């Protein structure tokens, strides 16, 4: 079992008062709570501090934690032989000191003292009268735009607590195969019924909740169901019009660019965005950019000069109108 220094996590001294611990937790929760924070690794940080607060706010758990002694964070350790007897249910952790603690999490060990920490809907666990549903699990899933567009199947490997008959949580691997429907969008939440923790005493299994993150794509950007792609055009293509092969997540399509197309103009391809069965599809927008060659040979330079001499186009005519007014 790896040691976690809950005092250090909350940034308080080991002799901090309950009030100081609460203040420290609230300050950090405001910064890192995943529902209100955009900090990097907010979820991970918040889980850590919530676990620390859960222990330190409870006098019994705090006393039990203090009895474990002080170790370096991440250091392997095991509770002293008499620790379990001193703190009730801990006796089931084999006070002879021969049992394995490898798959037991410190928070789960401490939770065993007072009936457990709540996970998922009810934090269902043995030792209570059932039936109880299993815990819900949550996971963030990163998929490509192509996977979001076509739908995909993923395999998730999670490490989750599973309670033994004594009510002690052990970390066990949990694999789930999930079909992601086509047309999911960035930030979409999905529920996978029955893929959470096992139910107890005949209770149903918990659910798995997925938070979909669509990876950045080198060509496409998304907003909801709409997809955007930059369409660079040469000046003469924009003036004369052209036909281009435009990439889309479903494959290239021919796009007719009308003459006189301006930079920044959005050419809409209706229904070629993310689509879901029975619902209106998103659109695909080609955003026009006019790109000029930075290196031109003598022949090209001469043609541009000739155009400059012969053209009466004045892109700054409105400057003069503004000056006259």
């Amino acid at each position: 079992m790896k040691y976690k220094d809950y005092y250090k996590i909350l940034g308080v001294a080991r002799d901090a008062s309950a009030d100081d611990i609460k203040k420290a937790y609230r300050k950090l929760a405001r910064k890192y709570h995943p529902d209100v924070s955009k900090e990097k690794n907010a979820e991970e940080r918040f889980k850590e501090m919530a676990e620390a607060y859960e222990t330190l706010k409870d006098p019994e758990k705090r006393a039990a934690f203090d009895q474990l002694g002080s170790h370096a964070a991440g250091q392997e350790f095991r509770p002293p032989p008499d620790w379990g007897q001193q703190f009730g249910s801990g006796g089931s952790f084999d006070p002879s000191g021969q049992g394995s603690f490898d798959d037991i999490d410190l928070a789960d060990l401490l939770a065993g003292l007072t009936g457990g920490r709540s996970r998922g809907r009810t934090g269902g666990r043995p030792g209570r009268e059932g039936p109880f549903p299993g815990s819900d699990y949550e996971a963030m899933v990163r998929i490509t735009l192509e996977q979001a567009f076509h739908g995909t199947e993923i395999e998730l490997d999670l490490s989750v607590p599973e309670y033994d008959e004594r009510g002690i949580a052990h970390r066990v691997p949990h694999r789930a195969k999930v079909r992601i429907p086509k047309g999911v969008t960035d930030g979409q939440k999905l529920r996978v019924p029955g893929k959470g923790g096992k139910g107890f005493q005949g209770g149903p299994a918990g659910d798995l909740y997925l938070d979909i993150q669509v990876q950045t794509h080198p060509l496409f950007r998304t907003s909801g169901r709409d997809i955007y792609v930059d369409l660079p055009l040469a000046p003469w293509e924009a003036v004369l019009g052209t036909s281009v092969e435009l990439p889309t997540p479903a494959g290239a399509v021919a796009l007719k660019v009308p003459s006189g197309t301006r930079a920044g103009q959005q050419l809409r391809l209706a229904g070629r965005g993310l689509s879901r069965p029975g619902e209106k599809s998103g659109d695909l927008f080609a955003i026009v950019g006019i790109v000029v060659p930075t290196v031109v040979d003598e022949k090209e330079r001469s043609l541009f000069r000739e155009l400059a001499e012969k053209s009466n186009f004045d892109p700054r005519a409105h400057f003069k109108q503004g000056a006259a007014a």
Partner: protein
Amino acid sequence: MNNDTAEALRLDQESQVSFSQLVILSGLSDDDLRELVDHGALTPVDPDASSWMFTSYCVVVARKARRLRSDFELDAHAVSVLLGFVERIEALENELHALRAGALAYGAATDRFSR
């Protein structure tokens, strides 16, 4: 362990869940949920119906409410106010994201295609 592939269901504005399903899925009690409706944090599809139905996106909101309530030790009113702000921030972020997605990534396009 059951290794069958399971279907993931969208939690969005299209599908619906009943009041009792929302209670089970959110981990909130009947009273908690009614209180959130009273405070305007959750809105039934038809508030005048005899049995309330909610869009399945309300599962996301109700679970968030449960987390905020327990993690910040807030009452239902405070949770509702906070959810309102979170919702406004998310709407603004979505708007900003849409504007960015719809704007030409001009530098990148120029660099990629210029010679």
